[in-house]
């Protein structure tokens, strides 16, 4: 477990589990599809379980051809973080909305993207996607769209 000191919060953070949800690779059927130019479609979803004090960051990556018509590879990974001092760091606002400090959200997104990068490399190593490294991404690109709990 790591204690992370930030100017806005102190958080105790554990990597509880990494779960591989999906992995696929598909060689295109025609030579016209370029294997040197890719599009990375990245979906990121964060979920929180306040009762068990854990946070899920689920990253799904699709590697598509440059014309977006072919899915060449895909990977979905769930990074599960334990936060023992969950109640101190993550506040529940009126209406059930969870308020996660921006700094913490960025830290978790950054760790998750790096984890997925590593898994992608080991999954696609030795294939035509061997060099399709997940690019460096600014975690701030994933601007939070806060969803009110139902």
């Amino acid at each position, binding site marked *: 477990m790591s204690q992370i000191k930030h100017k806005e919060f102190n958080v105790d953070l554990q990597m509880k589990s990494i779960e591989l949800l999906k992995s696929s690779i*598909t*060689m*295109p*059927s*025609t*030579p016209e599809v370029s*294997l*040197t*130019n*890719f*599009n*990375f*479609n*990245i*979906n*990121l*979803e*964060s*979920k*929180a*379980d*306040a*009762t*068990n004090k854990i946070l*899920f960051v689920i990253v799904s990556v699709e590697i598509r051809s*440059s014309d977006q018509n072919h899915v060449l590879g895909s990977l979905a990974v769930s990074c599960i973080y334990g936060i023992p001092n969950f109640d101190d760091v993550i506040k529940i606002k*009126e*209406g*059930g909305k*969870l308020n*996660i400090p921006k700094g913490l*959200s960025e830290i978790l997104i950054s760790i998750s993207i790096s984890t997925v990068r590593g898994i992608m490399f080991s999954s696609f190593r*030795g*294939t*035509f996607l*061997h*060099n*399709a490294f997940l*690019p460096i*991404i600014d975690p701030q*690109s*994933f*601007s*939070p*769209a*806060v*969803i*009110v*709990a*139902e």
Partner: protein
Amino acid sequence: MKNNNKTARKYKSSAISGLLTEISPVEKLQITTRMSLAARLDDLIIARGWGKSEFAEKVNKHPSEITKWLSGTQNFTIDILSEIALALNLPVGELFAPKQIQVINKAHILITVKQVEPTIKYVTPYGDFVGDVSNYHSGNYKDAEGWSTSRIYYS
């Protein structure tokens, strides 16, 4: 005057201790349940963007009745809970236990990468490799000694 950052002195009241020890476990649970239920109901109404009067209309009650429901003092009957659950479009059970997992962020980005070095070059000819149909089947069976074994059939 400067703030010395001291918090309040902790005070142990014999009057309070006396009262709390007289409360039976079942009384304590009843009160906790009433208040937790009231809090949950309040959150559910707010999450739908309704005011008290709007919710009162949906359950066909006077707003003062809703004030009482949300105060934490109401002893709800099963019938009232059913009316509330119907108005909120929820199973009755969810009035007691919120969904555990909350989605807090969903985002999508697209990154284009060009001129990746093609170090692994396939020699298998291009073709349509994807298919579910196969002439080979495998199955498990137990032999006389109880061991499971795979056998590959060709049909």
